[in-house]
């Protein structure tokens, strides 16, 4: 049975096509970047199965196929892969990309003392639906919030969706 780690070339191609080559070039040593990222995708696969009870593929070839339908989603996901080392947070991102609503975000920070981030998701429109909560204690994961869609609806605050940062 093949694993995600069989796909180094496909991942490098995907990253460079999405102008994320820095994730390889800035890593030291650069030749270790792709194996590290493939392991991250493997860990995400395990996290997905453990949390949701069924399998999903995060193989670069699968991501590439989805990029043909929804290039912005894969770009956003790859940007998250460059930000977060947490499979739990990457799964949170993936679930938003799959269409889940962001029900609650709790962020706690105390200078030089503590950080915690908790994001709760649910299927849109169903108040009774099962909630999914994702937690992190890594302050770097705060950067993921920059990719949330931010707006108001009838004057009420709304995080909706996870979108790629744009080129400047």
């Amino acid at each position: 049975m093949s694993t995600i780690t069989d796909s180094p070339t496909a991942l490098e191609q995907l990253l460079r096509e999405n102008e994320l080559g820095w994730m390889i070039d800035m890593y030291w040593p650069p030749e270790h970047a792709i194996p590290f990222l493939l392991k991250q995708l493997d860990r995400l696969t395990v996290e997905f199965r453990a949390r949701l009870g069924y399998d999903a593929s995060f193989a670069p070839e699968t991501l590439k196929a989805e990029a043909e339908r929804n290039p912005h989603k894969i770009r956003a996901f790859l940007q998250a892969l460059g930000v977060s080392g947490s499979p739990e947070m990457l799964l949170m991102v993936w679930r938003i990309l799959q269409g889940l609503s962001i029900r609650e975000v709790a962020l706690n920070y105390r200078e030089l003392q503590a950080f915690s981030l908790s994001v709760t998701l649910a299927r849109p429109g169903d108040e009774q639906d099962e909630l999914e909560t994702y937690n992190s204690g890594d302050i770097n994961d705060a950067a993921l919030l920059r990719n949330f869609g931010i707006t108001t609806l009838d004057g009420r605050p709304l995080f909706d969706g996870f979108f790629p940062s744009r080129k400047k």
Partner: protein
Amino acid sequence: MIGGSDMVFPAVGDAATLEACARIVARRWPDVRFEDAVTGDKYPRLSEIPFGKIRQLLAYPNAGAEAAWDADSPDSPENSMLLLIARPDDFTVVLDNPETAEMRSLLDAIHNLLWEDIHNAYARAA
């Protein structure tokens, strides 16, 4: 025919913008139905839309409104269909009447969502 107001936002009209705005429409209309305005392909669920392949998206508040438009019914109520158009330099919502409370709320939400793009567009023009 869909009505006569084009609400143009000076934002990058790419797949991400189209999805972001479609999500807002889906919040306003929980039973929304989407359709590719070019091919006529229909999408009962937001998650089924291949945003990378679509630049013009029709949205109906529900299956009844969609059926009425499909039948060219002259009785289709006001604002019972929106056309979302994503172009490289702008994003446009075409609708009958932007002055209703529902549409003002929706357009405000889209404006807020695209605020950074809009701000950047004005900064470039200054």
